[in-house]
């Protein structure tokens, strides 16, 4: 979410000598595919993967663009298989829609690392590394619930600005949010779905503010669309509530640290998982395990915890902002 395009160094891990996993191994080719980025988070995923691969001398990085939908991505991956990579790292448009591809590649003997959007079939991947969408909603819900309880608000009015509603991850986030709020006896008063873009965020926020003349808290799923959401809130001169963001963009973390807007916290869904996916894919291809773990192989599933960034810890997270 800035005019720079390079990932922050903190989102990749260089080949640092103290880490035995960093020692050069056999040369491997990693194939990579992520959907066309039209939005900061996906762009950061691709950039991080590229940068992380660049940090290893023994890795050849082959990226195929995945186009606009699952069908296009399937096409791109078919050409990727023809190149016989040692391992494929893949952020699917939709995990269920690309499950069949995962099976096919695994059958062909190419380990598949699923990044973020799970395959329903366990045979379709070697490793699954993902953020926790449900957990993200839960984190946002708990932050809001606790804060409102602390303020002793009896029946708070809570707004939610979701992302693209047709994506399952949006549904998961909302489900987690709802469940967490329920533990405090709270519920969402109005939920608008934007399109992960700033202009749609602005529009939906404007309408939300209109529908709820008094609000206690808002959760906005995505910091990128949050730029527009904040613009709408500022324009409406509304400040009676606080807002929690999502994903953890640099701009959002800066805003939280500065504490001049209603944005008080954001729950992470860090694109740094792409860097980790490349590192682990390299190890899988080289047949090595993670040096800190006892197991000789990389585990099958890694789920990132969704962390909550507030004014207090913003400085530590700033370097992870994208």
């Amino acid at each position: 979410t800035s005019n720079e395009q390079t990932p922050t160094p903190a989102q990749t891990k260089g080949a640092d000598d103290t880490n035995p996993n960093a020692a050069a191994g056999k040369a491997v080719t990693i194939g990579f595919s992520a959907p066309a980025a039209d939005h900061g988070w996906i762009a950061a995923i691709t950039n991080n993967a590229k940068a992380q691969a660049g940090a290893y001398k023994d890795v050849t990085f082959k990226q195929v663009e995945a186009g606009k939908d699952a069908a296009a991505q399937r096409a791109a991956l078919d050409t990727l298989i023809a190149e016989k990579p040692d391992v494929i790292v893949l952020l699917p448009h939709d995990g269920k829609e690309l499950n069949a591809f995962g099976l096919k590649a695994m059958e062909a003997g190419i380990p598949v690392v699923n990044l973020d959007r799970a395959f329903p079939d366990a045979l379709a991947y070697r490793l699954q590394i993902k953020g926790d969408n449900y957990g993200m909603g839960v984190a946002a819900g708990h932050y809001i619930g606790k804060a409102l309880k602390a303020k002793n608000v009896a029946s708070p009015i809570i707004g939610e600005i979701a992302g693209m509603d047709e994506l399952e991850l949006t549904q998961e986030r909302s489900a987690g949010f709802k469940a967490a709020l329920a533990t405090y006896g709270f519920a969402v008063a109005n939920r608008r779905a934007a399109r992960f873009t700033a202009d749609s965020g602005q529009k939906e926020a404007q309408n939300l503010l209109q529908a709820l003349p008094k609000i206690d808290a808002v959760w906005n799923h995505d910091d990128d669309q949050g730029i527009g959401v904040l613009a709408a809130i500022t324009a409406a001169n509304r400040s009676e509530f606080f807002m929690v963001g999502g994903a953890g963009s640099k701009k959002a973390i800066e805003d939280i640290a500065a504490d001049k807007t209603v944005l008080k916290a954001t729950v992470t869904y860090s694109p740094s998982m792409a860097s980790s996916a490349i590192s682990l894919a390299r190890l899988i291809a080289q047949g090595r395990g993670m040096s800190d773990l006892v197991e000789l192989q990389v585990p099958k599933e890694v789920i990132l915890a969704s962390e909550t960034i507030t004014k207090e810890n913003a400085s530590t997270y700033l370097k992870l902002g994208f």
Partner: protein
Amino acid sequence: MSVSSEQKVEHEVAGPAPHAAPAAAGTSWWKDEAQEPLRRNLGLVGVLLALFAIGAYIRPDLYSDADWVVNNIMVILTQAAAIGVVTVGMTFVIIGGGIDLSVGALIALSGVWATTLATQSFGPVGMIFTAVAVGIGAGLVNGALIAYGRLVPFIATLAMLVAARGLAAQISGKQTQISADQFINSLATTRIGGIPLLVIILLVVAGLGWVLLNRTTFGRRTVAIGGNAEAARLAGINVRGHTMLLYALSGLCCGIAAIMLTSLATSSQAAAAELYELDAIAAAIIGGTLLSGGRGTIVGSLFGVIVFSAITNLFAIANLPTEVQNMVKGAIIVVAVLLQQVRFSSITQFARRHGLTRAKPQT
């Protein structure tokens, strides 16, 4: 289209004076034809009132607060502002017999180009100039492909849509570009006499558009070309040159809209203004513009845009889930168009056919 409302109108619009002698009768006929846009607009006003009534029924608490209502109207209009400006340009293009599928992409491209760090360093004037210049430039490319390259407008502007989104992504590095310019950002928050500046811009653009369409030779040429391009050509009108200008005009409107959206979102990105093309075309058509060209009104298009904006607003107020929103929206569009077709004459005709007023017309 084969069974479009057009052909029907001919047969069904009933004049108020059925038995006037043919000589004297001209008057009632043209009047009726001239009232056609008025009737449509009244239909749309009816739709707006209905939306208002539904809102008031669902949320009496809000609608009983006059301040809130006024403010809500401003919100609806503000949200209609950028798309409204685009629709004015689109109306010209469609009346002129074309179509512009690239508007959303041109907004994104103009917006992204205007918010690069390099452009921002030239300040607000530089940003506005860039947005407008990019819009016009891309519009001219559209126009040249269509007028001189003889591409069908649908295909030419579709190609532009794809290419412009690509270029915008390239320029922005697929990042959301934040506008740091206070002047630009303040456009969205400024009000003059209680009316948001963006709404004023919309009204000014629409006003200029109205004058251009109805009072100038440019507008006349547009209507002529859309009505019958061959006839216009044989009448000595420079059809190709004019077509270029029409798409440039649409591009200009995109540039203006890009600044408006940038100001609203204090940022720009390659994915902005998604599907604005469909919204703008739909608004123009609902407002009475003939998709095949040769007929249309700015006021109708404006109403069309406002209706769509009011629908979205009502959905938020009613807190409908997205999927229900969509289903209801589809239904509202259908009803809105059907409503425009209801007209006094058909009611009287109905009455007559069922003998309710048979005595009268025989006088």
